[in-house]
C-alpha cells in the first residue's frame, strides 16, 4: 500500500504522459513515440491503482481476468479491423468509454464507502453532483455513439430521422435532466438516479438520429468530446488527477475537431446538431433537375488525358473508401510517376466520415504523407495543374459554394477543381451528393465523367496507361 500523496503524484505523471502522447501527434515522425508515452502513462495509472488499494485478495485475480478478457477482445479488434471501418470503430470505442463511465458511477452510487464518498443515502453533496453529471454525460455518449455506430455501419439508414416536435421534446428532456440532478442531490433517492440514467440514454439516442451520414465527422468528434467530459466528471468524483487531466484533454480535443469539421462545411455547430440537412433538400433537387449535357468517357480517354499531363491532383472522397479503391489508386499513381508526371493529393477537411479519414486510407495504401495536402496548402495549385482526378468526392468540389448565395452549401470552403485544365470525375451516376444539390462541375466543358465503380475504373485506367 502506498500513500495517497505518492499515488497522486504518480497519477500526475501519467496525466503529463498523456499530454505528451497528444503532443507527439504534431508530426508523423514523433507520433509513434507519443503513442508509447500514452501506453506508459496507462501502465503507471493502473499499477498505482493496484498498489494504492493494497488489496491483493481474490478480487484482485478477477480484476486481472477482466482486464485480460477485455484486453484480448480489444487487441483482436485492433488487428482485424480494416482501415475503411475506422469511423465505426472509433464510434464503437466511444460508446464503451461512455458505458464504462456509467458503470463506475453506478458502482460509486451503490457503494460510496469504497470511494470515500460517504455512506449510501448520504453521499457527499459535491461528489453526488459530479457523479450524476459524469453518469448523465456517459449515458448520452453511450447511446449517441451506438446510433452513430449503427449509422456508419449501415445497419441503420444514414439519412436523418426527423419528426414533428423533435426539438421541443429534446429541450424538455435536457431540462428534465437538470431538474433530476437537482432533485437527486437533495433527496439522494436511488430511484431518481436510475431515472436520470434512463433519460440520459434516451436523449443521446434522440440527439443523434436526426443527423445525416455526411455530418458524421462532426458527430464523432462531438461524441469524442463528450466521452472526455464524462471521464472528467468521474475524475472529480474519485478525486483522481489522471482522470481529470485526461478528461479535459479529450474533451477539448473533441471540441476542437468538431469546430474544424463545422468550419469545413461552413455550418454552425447548432445547425449540425439540429440536423435534418439532407432530408429537406431532397425534394427541391429532384424537381429542378433538368437534363443538361455531360461528357462521359471511358478508361481509355482518361488514361490518354493523364498520360499527356505534366501534373495531376487527386481529390479523394468517401466514395473511394466505400469502393476500397485506395490501393488501386496508388498503383495508378505509381504508373503516372513512372511517366514523370507530378502527382499530389488534395484532401478536404470533411472528406470521408471522420476527421483525417482519407489520410489514413492513403497511408494504408503506402502513399507517402508528404504528397498529401490540405485544402489551404494546395488550393492555389489547381490553376497550374493539368488534370484533377476526383474519386468519390462530390460536394467538396462544387463551385456553386462560391457563386450561388442561394445554395445550401454557399460559403463552404471547396477545392478549386474547376480551375484545372481538365477534370476527371469518377462517379457511379449523376446523382447529387449528400447535400442534395447538383454539381455544376459535371456540366463544365473541360469535365469528363467516368461512370463506373471507383476501384474498377482506376484499375482500368492503369491498364491503359
Amino acid at each position, binding site marked *: 500500500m502506498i500513500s495517497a500523496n505518492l499515488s497522486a503524484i504518480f*497519477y500526475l505523471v501519467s496525466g503529463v504522459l498523456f*499530454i505528451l*502522447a*497528444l503532443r507527439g501527434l504534431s508530426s*508523423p515522425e514523433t507520433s509513434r513515440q507519443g503513442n508509447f508515452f500514452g*501506453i506508459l*502513462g496507462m501502465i503507471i*495509472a493502473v499499477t498505482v*491503482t493496484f498498489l494504492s488499494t493494497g488489496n491483493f485478495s481474490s*478480487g484482485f485475480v*478477477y*480484476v486481472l481476468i*477482466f*482486464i485480460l478478457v*477485455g484486453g484480448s*477482445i*480489444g*487487441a483482436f*479488434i*485492433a*488487428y482485424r479491423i480494416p482501415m475503411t471501418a475506422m469511423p465505426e470503430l*472509433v464510434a464503437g470505442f466511444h460508446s464503451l*468509454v461512455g*458505458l*464504462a463511465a456509467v*458503470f*463506475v458511477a453506478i*458502482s*460509486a452510487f*451503490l*457503494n460510496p*464507502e469504497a*470511494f470515500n464518498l460517504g455512506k449510501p443515502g448520504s453521499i457527499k453533496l459535491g461528489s453526488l453532483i459530479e457523479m450524476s453529471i459524469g453518469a448523465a454525460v456517459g449515458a448520452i455518449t453511450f447511446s449517441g455513439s451506438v446510433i452513430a455506430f449503427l449509422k456508419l455501419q449501415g445497419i441503420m439508414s444514414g439519412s436523418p430521422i426527423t419528426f414533428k416536435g423533435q426539438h421541443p421534446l429534446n429541450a424538455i428532456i435536457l431540462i428534465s435532466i437538470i431538474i433530476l440532478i437537482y432533485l437527486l442531490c437533495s433527496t439522494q433517492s436511488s430511484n431518481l438516479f436510475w431515472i436520470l440514467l434512463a433519460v440520459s440514454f434516451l436523449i443521446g439516442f434522440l440527439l443523434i438520429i436526426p443527423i445525416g451520414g455526411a455530418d458524421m465527422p462532426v458527430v464523432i468528434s462531438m461524441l*469524442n468530446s463528450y*466521452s*472526455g467530459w464524462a*471521464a472528467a466528471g*468521474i475524475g472529480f468524483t474519485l478525486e483522481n488527477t489522471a*482522470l481529470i*487531466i*485526461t478528461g*479535459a*484533454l*479529450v*474533451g*477539448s*480535443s473533441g471540441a*476542437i*475537431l468538431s469546430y*474544424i469539421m463545422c468550419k469545413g462545411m461552413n455550418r454552425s455547430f447548432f445547425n449540425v446538431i439540429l440536423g435534418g440537412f439532407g432530408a429537406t433538400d431532397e425534394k427541391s433537387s429532384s424537381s429542378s433537375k433538368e437534363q443538361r449535357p455531360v461528357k462521359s468517357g471511358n478508361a481509355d480517354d482518361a488514361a490518354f488525358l493523364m498520360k499527356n499531363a505534366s501534373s495531376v491532383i487527386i481529390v479523394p472522397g468517401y466514395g473511394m473508401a466505400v469502393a476500397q479503391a485506395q490501393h488501386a489508386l496508388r498503383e495508378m499513381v505509381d504508373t503516372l510517376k513512372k511517366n514523370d508526371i507530378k502527382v499530389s493529393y488534395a*484532401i478536404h477537411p470533411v472528406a470521408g466520415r*471522420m476527421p*483525417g*479519414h482519407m*489520410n489514413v486510407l492513403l*497511408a*494504408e495504401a503506402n502513399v*507517402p*504523407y508528404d504528397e*498529401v495536402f490540405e485544402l489551404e496548402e494546395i488550393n492555389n495549385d489547381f490553376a497550374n495543374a493539368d488534370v484533377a482526378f476526383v474519386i468519390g468526392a462530390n460536394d467538396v468540389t462544387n463551385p456553386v459554394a462560391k457563386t450561388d448565395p442561394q445554395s445550401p452549401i454557399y460559403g463552404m470552403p471547396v477545392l478549386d477543381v474547376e480551375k484545372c485544365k481538365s477534370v476527371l470525375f469518377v462517379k457511379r451516376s449523376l446523382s447529387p451528393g449528400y447535400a442534395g444539390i447538383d454539381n455544376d462541375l459535371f456540366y463544365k466543358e473541360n469535365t469528363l465523367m467516368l461512370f463506373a465503380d471507383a476501384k474498377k475504373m482506376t484499375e482500368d485506367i492503369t491498364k491503359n496507361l
Partner: protein
Amino acid sequence: MEIDPLIFRLSIFILSIFVGYYVVWSVTPSLHTPLMSVTNAISSVIIVGAIIAGLSGNSDSVFNTSSIFGFLAIALAAINIFGGFLVTQRMLAMYKKKKKEKK
C-alpha cells in the same frame, strides 16, 4: 481559511483544458484519425475507477452489485485501452515519408 481541495482539482481541470486546446491545435490534420483513437484509449484511464469499484467487495464475497458493475467497467475500459493504443500504433506505422521505400 482552508481552501477546499475541490478548487485545486478545478484548477487542474481548467488548466488542462487550455493545455489540451493548444496541444490539439498543433496536431497535424493528417493525423486526426489517430488523434481520435488515441484520445479514446487514454480516456479509458477511467479503468482506475473501475478497479477501485471491482475491489470494493470484502474477502468473503468478491461479487456484490457494486463490484459487478466495477468488473464490467474494467472489461469495457480494457477493450478500449488495448484496442485504442494498438489500432493507433497500427495506423501510425503506415505513415511513411517519400523515398527510401524499397518495395
